[in-house]
């Protein structure tokens, strides 16, 4: 066990985590040159396209150190986006140490600060690594000073590397050996294995990534899932090298996968403890805090026939994604669908993309909303995740919105823009602190303003340099109203939104105008109105299309006509028929675009 090192890497998306990971895998001979595909660990095509990591992955590598001994390095990858911070804490709980990778040219990034605190709180040894020292703009001393100022971590031993060229990466491996402690043996030999992640494999059923804390686990063992009380027979255990490699056992201190032919991922809940059925541990390990979805949206199939397929797809996705929540929703306008909860906007986009790509479903996603607290006149408090379900005004004492505290790091040049953006979004400044290369500002902001387009705007006002982390602080009461959208006089419940009174008129106008541009002309006039209660605050009309017909058709080549009509048909597939009006998918998300 003294030859095992379990570690994670904490880094911002483009600070070079994946490149460093690839370099480490290469140095340990995990993959041949030929097998080495850029960014080996980002398995999911969406992860690879977006250059982000969503799900935890792990890899076990043999490393022959300078002391002559061969160590087993277990690297547990962590996601790098604020939506997925809960996954980070899970990954970290399997480790004794972490590398904090900082771009030596850009300095510390807000997400890394938050994740680094999590690591320190969990008692991990954190090794600062300064990456991209091959860049002419790299400033090692400034970056060290910033680590010390922002995180309060001693950076004098920080290792300067270039993951791109490979320079000094071997020093990182040596530091892992020397500075990160080996796992400590448990009190007994009774099995305790923490489920870090579980996912559904079409062939194997549920596969779980576990960290064995004490005891050991072998194929043929009868294991007990401690929270459910269910027992399963272990089929296989092993590690990723990064290829899947079967082993005879996973021993205390090790991280690897197990496969117990569990059919349903709920049978192996993330954060749960596995033990032997015959010789169970006295108590489970402390689990993880369950993540509460912060953003809710309705997902509706374009065609009602796809409803069962959507349910099945969501069920399967949840096997992989414990943070996703869904329950059936019935909308007057949209028919049957699901109310889904997400950790944030990126999480929502990814789920939607996976449903469409992996399950070939045509979906309408309604505008995301945060969860409001509604204090009713009878004294009860309702957690309201759907504007359509706002109780009538006479039953409401007050509506409270979630307030977050956002920590933003930005280069000094853009601090003015960032402050302006925060003020525009009803933000209240808490602190401002000038650091070596960046400025750190903290703001209280309504989460509702942040989920719309705050991240995109933050990136655009800072040329991509500003970074942000946030946590939920409290709920504040305010003058909120529900703005309804009426199409040809009928309220479309899926388009309702909760808005601060002071923004309602502008939002209503912008939304109606935006929708006018997004709804194509149809065979009749389409009237779009925004209303608060019975009062119409904005209106607009999509004038009727006069005709849609090919001028000429004379027995010649039909292929171009066919393509044209196929394109027309494809376009309609992305539209939901509400009453007699075809509404394109984008129009349901128009509220996200009104500020552009």
């Amino acid at each position, binding site marked *: 066990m003294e030859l095992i090192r379990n570690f994670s890497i904490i880094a911002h998306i483009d600070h070079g985590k994946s490149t460093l990971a690839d370099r480490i895998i290469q140095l340990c001979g995990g993959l041949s040159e030929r097998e080495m595909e850029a960014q080996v660990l980002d398995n999911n095509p969406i992860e690879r396209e977006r250059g982000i990591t969503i799900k935890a992955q792990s890899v076990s590598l043999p490393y022959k150190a300078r002391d002559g001994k061969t160590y087993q390095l277990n690297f547990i990858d962590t996601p790098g986006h604020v939506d997925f911070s809960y996954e980070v804490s899970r990954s970290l709980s399997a480790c004794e140490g972490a590398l904090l990778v900082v771009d030596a040219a850009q300095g510390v990034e807000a997400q890394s600060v938050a994740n680094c605190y999590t690591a320190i709180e969990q008692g991990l040894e954190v090794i600062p690594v300064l990456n991209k020292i091959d860049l002419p703009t790299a400033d090692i001393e400034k970056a060290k000073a910033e680590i010390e100022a922002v995180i309060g971590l001693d950076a004098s031993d920080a290792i300067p590397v270039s993951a791109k060229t490979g320079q000094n990466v071997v020093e990182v491996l040596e530091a892992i050996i020397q500075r990160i402690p080996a796992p400590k043996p448990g009190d007994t030999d009774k099995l305790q294995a923490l489920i870090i992640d579980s996912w559904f494999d079409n062939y194997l059923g549920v596969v779980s990534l576990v960290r064995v804390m004490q005891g050991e686990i072998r194929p043929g063992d009868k294991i007990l899932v401690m929270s459910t009380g269910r027992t399963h027979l272990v089929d296989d255990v092993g590690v990723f090298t990064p290829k899947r490699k079967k082993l005879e056992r996973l021993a205390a201190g090790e991280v690897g996968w197990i496969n117990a032919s569990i059919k349903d991922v709920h049978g192996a809940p993330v954060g749960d403890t596995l033990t032997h059925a015959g010789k169970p541990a006295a108590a489970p390990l402390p689990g993880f805090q369950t993540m509460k979805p912060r953003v809710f949206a309705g997902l509706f199939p374009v065609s009602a026939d796809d409803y069962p397929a959507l349910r099945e797809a969501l069920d399967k996705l949840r096997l992989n994604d414990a943070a996703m929540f869904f329950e059936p929703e019935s909308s007057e306008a949209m028919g049957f669908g699901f109310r889904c909860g997400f950790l944030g906007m990126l999480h929502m986009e990814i789920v939607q993309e996976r449903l469409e790509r992996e399950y070939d479903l045509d979906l309408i996603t309604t505008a995301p909303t945060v969860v409001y607290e509604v204090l009713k006149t009878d004294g009860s408090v309702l957690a309201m995740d759907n504007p359509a379900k706002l109780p009538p005004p006479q039953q409401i004492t007050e509506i409270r919105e979630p307030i977050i505290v956002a920590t933003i790091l930005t280069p000094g040049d853009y601090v003015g823009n960032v402050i302006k953006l925060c003020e525009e979004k009803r933000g209240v400044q808490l602190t401002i602190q000038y650091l070596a290369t960046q400025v750190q500002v903290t703001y209280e902001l309504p989460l509702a303003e942040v989920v719309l387009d705050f991240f995109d705007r933050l990136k655009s006002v800072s040329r991509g340099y500003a970074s942000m982390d946030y946590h939920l602080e409290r709920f504040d009461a305010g003058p909120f109203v529900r703005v309804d959208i009426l199409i040809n006089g009928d309220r479309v419940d899926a388009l309702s939104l909760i808005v601060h009174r002071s923004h309602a008129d502008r939002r209503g106008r912008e939304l109606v105008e935006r929708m006018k541009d997004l709804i194509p002309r149809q065979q009749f006039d389409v009237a779009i109105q925004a209303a608060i209660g019975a009062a119409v605050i904005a209106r607009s009309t999509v004038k009727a299309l006069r005709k849609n017909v090919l*001028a000429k058709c*004379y027995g010649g080549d039909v292929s171009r006509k066919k393509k044209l009509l196929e394109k027309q048909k494809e376009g309609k597939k992305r539209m939901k028929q509400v009453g007699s009006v075809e509404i394109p998918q984008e129009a349901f998300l128009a509220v996200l675009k009104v500020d552009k």
Partner: protein
Amino acid sequence: MNLIPPPLSLYVHMPWCVRKCPYCDFNSHGVRGTPAYADYVDALLADLDADLRDFGTALDGRRIATVFFGGGTPSLFAPELIGRFLDGARERLPFAPDAEITLETNPGTVEHGRFDGYLAAGVNRISFGVQSFDNDKLRRLGRIHSAGEAADAVRQAQDAGIGNINIDLMYALPEQTLEGALDDIDRAVTLGPTHVSHYQLTLEPNTAFAANPPPLPDDDAAWAIQEACEARLGEAGYGQYEVSAYALPGRRCAHNLNYWRFGDYLGIGAGAHGKISDANGVRRRWKTRLPAAYLASAGQPARIGGDNLVALDDLPFEYMLNALRLVDGVPMADFAERTGLSQAAIAPAMAACVARGWLVHDAVTLKTTALGQRFLNDVIEAFMA
């Protein structure tokens, strides 16, 4: 598959023009020097021979109901050459005694006396590509003739004894007003043609206009023009029978009606498309596009640009694409006869279109409503696989 052989037409493509018009996406080629007109006629007859051999028994006992010389500008071909082709065709295929034989004509290419020759060659219908009677618009359309020349050409044809005359007009021309469009109708009607084709100018891919769009009336203005022109034509006795076609009673274009009723046609000439119902189903065959390649492969397999059976899934769409254009509709029985599919195959799509107010039918006739005519693309889409 058991298809009842529908009427058979013959389409002949003449690929050359004096100059390519900037809106034109047909297979036409501006002339450089003098094209090999006589060789081309030989190639057409060789093409016909080869097609007859290839199609074999599928053509047994069938007569040519109509012939249409399209282009390009067929009137670049001298009457003797048109006569030589028609004589050759009659030797190879039986023609119906009253066969309608149309020749497309550019009013800028006909010198005096030419129509007597075409009439003698067997042509009995002339279609004039007039497009507009406004000289400014004609220039902008890249046409080589003036309004006066167009009127003269029509009168010459009438004087020669060709009673069946079509005038092609386009509307929604660059910066065209409603008054301008109606004036075009009035001037056409004054000439007393039997038929008017009235098309909206549309920007087609791979044309000079698509690359460099002229300022066209918007959709609403174009619709106002269409409605007003349709009414004006109606007042003058020209009834609309297809999206863009208007005729005096009994003067509808039999050749085009055969396309719209999903009849069969041989396609002879560079880039020509044909459709033949045979024992295997509905076959489409088209010829290589470039005149030089067509001439070089006269009567050889290399003249064929492509040949395939229409997939069963595509038949409802292809049938409706044509049939629903007809204002009076088509016999209900035609669908099964011409596609070999059962009526049941399209029953759900049909019901949906009826529910939307796009189609009406009884046991005898299927037709589009006025709404369906206006939104024909939406109607046809319902029949796509």
